[in-house]
């Protein structure tokens, strides 16, 4: 028994994953040698990560390709066996792959499909109903609701191979949610979709999380997904968590400066006249963006307003979040 009165739905402690592989030499002779003696190599895909997730959270895993996001999701869904550390989801150890656990979550991978390619999506839904042992009545209710929410009524009887990528992803989501999972793992759900389809999927995820209180972990390398959906973000790079917290705080923590956007009228300004206030992000005669340290921003704005420059308007803005993230990954 733990003393905690508050139980997290997902608890991850010191979780690591090391992949083992063999060094491959180019050339026939080297390949032949490789049959007898191979050099074993290791990569640490995930390094001692810790996090807890509460019920109903919608949390974003952000990081460049190969950062360890998918590996983490695979460990949480029981596909991969952790090298060390521990993961508990709903009180289960995922890699034991107990049926009671599997019935309570779903995994959707943007690049892999569970729908039967040659059949209408409806056939895959019926199959999933049996696999997850969903009672008839509940199945019908869930299906009707999901079909309505995702607006896929007209494509249920069309062969999956004939659907667009966006339509297919919608159907994948229906298939994954028919058994009302408590937790949904979404690995790059918007990958390869056009802007409109991305937005549709995003809107659905947002609504579903809000209405059903389903805990959702989303990985993406599209900033837009994370910005739109997640209050909390976990940034992973080279297998390590480098940030875990509110998206807004990330800006305060990492963006040490704000941006002054100033418009000028009359004859405008010369570069030399504004350069002294800070680093210029953008410059033309009538419109200038200047990076100014957070603490000095008021001071500088005052100085500009009280100078003899022909200021028409002045705005103090936060740095764009994309900019912040890009800077973090560059380090």
């Amino acid at each position, binding site marked *: 028994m733990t003393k905690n009165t508050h139980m997290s739905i997902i608890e991850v402690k010191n979780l690591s*994953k*090391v*992949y*083992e592989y063999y060094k491959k030499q180019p050339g026939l002779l080297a390949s032949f040698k490789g049959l007898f003696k191979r050099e074993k190599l*290791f990569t640490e895909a995930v390094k001692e990560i810790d996090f807890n997730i509460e019920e109903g959270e919608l949390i974003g895993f952000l990081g460049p390709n190969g950062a360890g996001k998918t590996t983490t999701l*695979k460990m949480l*869904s*029981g*596909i*991969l*066996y952790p*090298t060390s550390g521990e993961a508990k989801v709903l009180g289960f150890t995922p*890699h034991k*792959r107990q*049926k009671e656990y*599997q*019935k309570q*979550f*779903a*995994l959707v*991978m943007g690049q*892999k499909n*569970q729908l*039967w390619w*040659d*059949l209408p999506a409806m*056939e*895959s839904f*019926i*199959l*999933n109903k*049996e*696999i*997850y*042992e969903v009672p008839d009545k509940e199945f019908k209710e869930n299906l009707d609701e999901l079909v309505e929410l995702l607006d896929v009524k007209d494509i249920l009887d069309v*062969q999956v191979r004939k659907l667009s990528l966006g339509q297919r992803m919608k159907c994948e989501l229906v298939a994954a949610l028919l058994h009302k999972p408590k937790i949904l793992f979404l690995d790059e759900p918007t990958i390869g979709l056009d802007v409109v389809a991305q937005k549709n999927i995003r809107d659905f995820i947002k609504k579903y999380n809000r209405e059903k209180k389903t805990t959702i972990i989303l990985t993406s390398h599209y900033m837009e997904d994370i910005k739109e959906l997640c209050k909390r973000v976990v940034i992973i790079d080279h297998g390590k968590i480098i940030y875990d917290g509110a998206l807004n705080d990330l800006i305060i923590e990492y963006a040490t400066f704000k941006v002054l956007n100033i418009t000028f009228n009359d004859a405008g300004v010369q570069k030399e006249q504004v350069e002294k206030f800070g680093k210029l992000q953008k410059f033309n005669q009538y419109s200038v963006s200047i990076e100014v340290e957070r603490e000095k921003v008021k001071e500088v704005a005052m100085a500009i307003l009280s100078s003899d420059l022909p200021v028409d308007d002045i705005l103090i803005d936060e740095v764009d979040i994309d900019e912040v993230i890009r800077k973090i990954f560059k380090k």
Partner: protein
Amino acid sequence: MRKYWILIKTSWLRQLVYRSTVYAYRLGNIVDLLFQVAIWTAVFKTTSSVYGYNYDEMITYVMIGWLINFLTSNYGIEDVVSRNIQYGELNIYLVRPLSYLKSLVAMSLGRISIALFSGIVMQIIFIFIFRHHIVPPAHLIDILLIIIIVFLGYFTRLLLSILFGLIAFWVTDVSGLNSFYGIFVKFLSGGYAPLTLLPIMIYKISLFFPFAYIVFFPTQLYLGKVTTLEGLKGILIEITWLAALYIVIKIVWNRGLKKYEGVGI
């Protein structure tokens, strides 16, 4: 169990989508059969007996052997397994409350439906055309044994294919191996010609392996070249192989899965 029943049904529905493909395969089969008939007809022009077979027995071997080879086929389950492993499609099975191995058996059973119908119809027509050369079964009681052997043969071949497909856990590209495997099984099971045509040593060795019991053995039984008692012995050997294959698959699957999951580093 209901989920696997629906899986059989879904695979069957999928097969319906490919009706035209199935019929196209039958066209290939017709050419294949006519070619074998032509070869043996040519061979028997100069002799009246080949390794104890007269012309009619050989034609019967070709026709009945083809039918049995067809009934025990599983249309490349080894390819399905290796592809599932290589492209990570196995993940979809691992996260759902579903057994992968049972799913494979269910999907394979669903896949044979249309092909089964078209293949049997085609073969009935062939047997009718060659009716004057088809030898009737030696003993009617053997028909029952043949049905049992064919049934067991289907599962023997299915388990062999699954086992072969599981190699993909360790080898990155298995397409070449899979192609070799298909020909190897058809040859050793007597799908091309009676195994008695082989050197006596190889023939005797082949009887210790499960392959011979898939096509060659039931056809021998049909022609009365094997006694009913030997037929029963053959069934026992096949059942033993099935049990052995089941155990080996379980072991290989568990080890392969450990590698897939990256256990023990």
